[in-house]
């Protein structure tokens, strides 16, 4: 692993406290996958997946974190997404979540699936309000929180629109905002960069960076096959893939094959990360890993 790099001061225009201190601590475990395996119709999809996400703390900073689970198509990423979301139970192993490390259940983690789910029969504001009700927010409290989120996510002028009237980017932000109404610690996103053009990808990266840099308790877990996008936003990358037998044929069932600490490589909390030479080197490293998975 590369030695930690001291990075020059950068101007944050997205709300992070300006600092030259890139030291950090990893404290208690927030998410823990212990030997998670899952099969469908006898075919192993995931096999003994182990990973641990710890609470990352930066001195004098409101810094959350972004973890990316990378893998080529067909590696069980969506299955892992569903298990992490508490929508699916693993055949063996367990997923422990939060400070108390309890088995994950649906609703504990904010979830934004690939198609940015929203209730089609409710307006954007209605979608947020109905989510607020689930955590006991009533009347003006729900409206205030919804209005705050709409403003924060640049959706105020679209509050009376139905999901079908939103653009892809607006819909994605609305779906995130809805999840934030009732879950503000973990947000799990499945293929968030899929189908977005380069500008929309950059907007989303800035958007996630903005949220994470303002909330030390926020943990984004991105499940994606997009190496470049993941490296631009993540602090830690886990790569999912299959083992191979002696003949070089893939064995069924994916597990975590590699992990990369981007902070240690000087590729986190940094503007224009993609322009750094280290970025290209790491991207190529992971790119070369993919065909072997």
């Amino acid at each position, binding site marked *: 692993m590369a030695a930690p790099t001291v990075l020059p001061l950068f101007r944050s225009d997205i709300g992070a406290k300006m600092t030259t201190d890139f030291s950090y601590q990893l404290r208690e475990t927030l998410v823990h996958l212990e030997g998670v395996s899952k099969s469908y119709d006898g075919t192993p999809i995931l096999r003994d997946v182990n990973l641990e996400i710890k609470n990352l703390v930066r001195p004098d900073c409101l810094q959350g974190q972004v973890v990316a689970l990378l893998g080529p198509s067909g590696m069980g990423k969506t299955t892992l997404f569903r298990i992490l*979301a508490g*929508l699916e139970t693993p055949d063996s192993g367990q997923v422990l979540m939060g400070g108390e490390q309890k088995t994950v259940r*649906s*609703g504990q*983690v*904010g*979830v934004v*699936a690939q*198609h940015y*789910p*929203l*209730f*089609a*029969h409710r307006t954007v504001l209605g979608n947020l309000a*109905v*989510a607020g009700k*689930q*955590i006991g927010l009533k009347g003006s409290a729900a409206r205030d929180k919804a209005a705050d989120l709409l403003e924060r996510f640049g959706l105020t002028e679209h509050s009376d629109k*139905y*999901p*079908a*009237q939103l653009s892809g980017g607006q819909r994605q932000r609305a779906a995130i905002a*809805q*999840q934030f*109404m*009732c*879950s503000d610690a973990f947000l799990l996103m499945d293929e968030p960069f899929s189908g977005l053009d380069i500008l929309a990808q950059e907007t989303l990266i800035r958007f996630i960076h903005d949220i994470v840099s303002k909330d030390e308790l926020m943990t984004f877990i991105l499940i994606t096959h997009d190496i470049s996008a993941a490296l631009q936003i993540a602090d830690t990358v886990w790569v999912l893939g299959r083992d191979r037998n002696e003949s070089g044929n893939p064995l069924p069932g994916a597990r975590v094959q590699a992990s990369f600490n981007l902070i240690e490589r000087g590729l986190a909390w940094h503007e224009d990360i993609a322009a750094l030479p280290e970025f290209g080197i790491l991207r190529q490293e992971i790119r070369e890993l993919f065909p072997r998975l």
Partner: protein
Amino acid sequence: MNTESTVMASDTAPANGSPTLVPATHSSAALKVGDRTPKPSEGLLSLFLPNRHVAFPLLILVGLVEAALFLALWVLSPYDVLPTPLEVLSALGRLWMTQGLGQELATSFGLNLQALLWSSLISLGLAYLTVLPVFRPLVTAISKGRFLSLAGFTFIFTLMVGGGRPLQVTLLTFAITVFYVTSMASVIAAIPRSEFEHARTLRMSEGRIVWEVVILGTADKAFEVLRQNAAMGWMMLSLIEGIVRSGGGIGAMLLAESKHFALAEVFAIQLVILIVGMVQDYSIEWLRRLCCPYSVLTLERK
């Protein structure tokens, strides 16, 4: 081909390798690719080309032309047995003024409305109850009632509710319900898993999910199912009023006129049913758009 939009990269690529900005004419030309708006040159030909957007006034005009063609075919029909439009209008006046067509129409409208309300209550209730596995076999069994003849139920329903109007209401409610419940149960069965899961990720209880996803989420489709079954109600009405003539109604009148080969009167009654049915159809559609405005937002033809 438009020369403005066919500039090859090699034509414009500068020798120094710097990027070439494509002129604005290219962008606008590219935007038209795949657009379904007809070209001006297509004119009325666009009416015969698939998936073309046609202006509403033009569609109205086409409808009027087609109606005129139908009328002309009717007037010029070689079949002497067919009454002429004038004969039908004359019969309509006669039926309305002297034979109580308006009264019978009101009776039938009331019957259809009553049966529709009952069948909506029963069908929607049963369809929503399919969220409980214990009700699924029952709903499946009821939907199989579509294959049964109403004549076979007349006697048993007579014993249960007596004759006349209650029997008509029961028969029509049964006839509509077996189709209504089938359609609505299919709508609910077709809700994607992702919609349930989305609600679960928002910490909704399963009861709340039924309200949000199953009931509210399918409200627009429920209107459409209602519309179709309300129309079927009119279709079955004449049969039921024919079976139970003591309850009266426009269907009984239709069968009586048909028995006497009074085709002008038969056509007149059919015309009245058609007009009332169309008004009912448009009313339900209007109600759907009013209550569920989101239902038409993504349609190609709104």
